[in-house]
């Protein structure tokens, strides 16, 4: 089962008991999941069960070197899709991608990598 | 000496900076 990692994250983030929720207070930073891929095509899905008022999230794929002290998509090692306005990000550049998403939405993330690592 | 930087604000003590959601983005949508 894919969960939020307990160690591969910005230490100031709070991870819930079931490791499926994360809360941040001081500044925008990142937690990675427990699973990774390095070849072939992979797809993961998440249903947003709860997003407190005024919260925002950026979900997607992040490489090992993505800076955990910044949001996913800040540097060239990450690609994210933001809940607010549905913007997609890579290297801090935001582009229109979809409407915003929130509680009850199910999001899918596909990555296509070469067969050889 | 505040002229050193335009609209410089003199402080008596540290202030915590509140980051915006777009803090790291090239442009703020």
């Amino acid at each position, binding site marked *: 089962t894919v969960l939020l990692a307990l160690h591969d994250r910005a230490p100031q983030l709070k991870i819930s008991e079931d490791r499926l929720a994360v809360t941040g207070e*001081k*500044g925008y930073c990142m937690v990675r999941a427990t699973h990774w891929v390095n070849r072939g095509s992979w797809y993961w899905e998440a249903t947003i069960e709860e997003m407190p008022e005024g919260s925002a999230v950026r979900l997607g794929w992040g490489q090992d070197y993505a*800076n955990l*002290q*910044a949001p996913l998509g800040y540097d060239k090692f990450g690609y994210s899709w933001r809940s607010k306005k549905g913007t997609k990000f890579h290297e801090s550049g935001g582009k229109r991608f979809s409407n915003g998403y929130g509680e009850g939405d199910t999001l899918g993330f596909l990555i296509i990598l070469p067969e050889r690592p | *000496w505040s002229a*050193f*930087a335009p*609209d*410089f*604000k*003199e*402080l*008596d*003590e*540290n*202030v*915590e*900076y509140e*980051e915006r959601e777009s*803090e*790291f983005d090239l442009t703020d949508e």
Partner: protein
Amino acid sequence: NLPMAMRFRHLKLTSRQSVGVFRSQIHKRGLFCQRDIESGEMVIEYAGEVIRSVLADKRERQYTVIGMGCYMFRIDENFVVDATMKGNAARFINHSCDPNCYSKVVEILGHKHIIIFALRKIICGEELTYDYKFPFEEDKIPCTCGSRRCRKFLN
């Protein structure tokens, strides 16, 4: 020998009387003392905006692009005080390889403060300096402190 928290509370009132900013030929501005200061005394807090380290690099690049001098001081590996746009007179304290002050990060009531202390007795009118202790780097910044023990570079 009062507790740090008491000395710090007192500092806010006194530092405005203790230090002044002067126009310096070498560094444009400098900090000088307006009364005799005893060795070990708290002189001033290096105050500014507390930001996460990851923001400091970004801001430094932005200031450089617009040609603005950058005044920052690292608190620890997570936080930096950025005094470029918001700060107090401490931002003008210059470096010396033979300083009369030193900086120290002091935790008071759960918050970290960068405080400048007097290394020795300082006579009214003297410039206040401390050793920036920049980390060693490839591209060198020449030091113009002119002291006998000058190390020739800031970093």
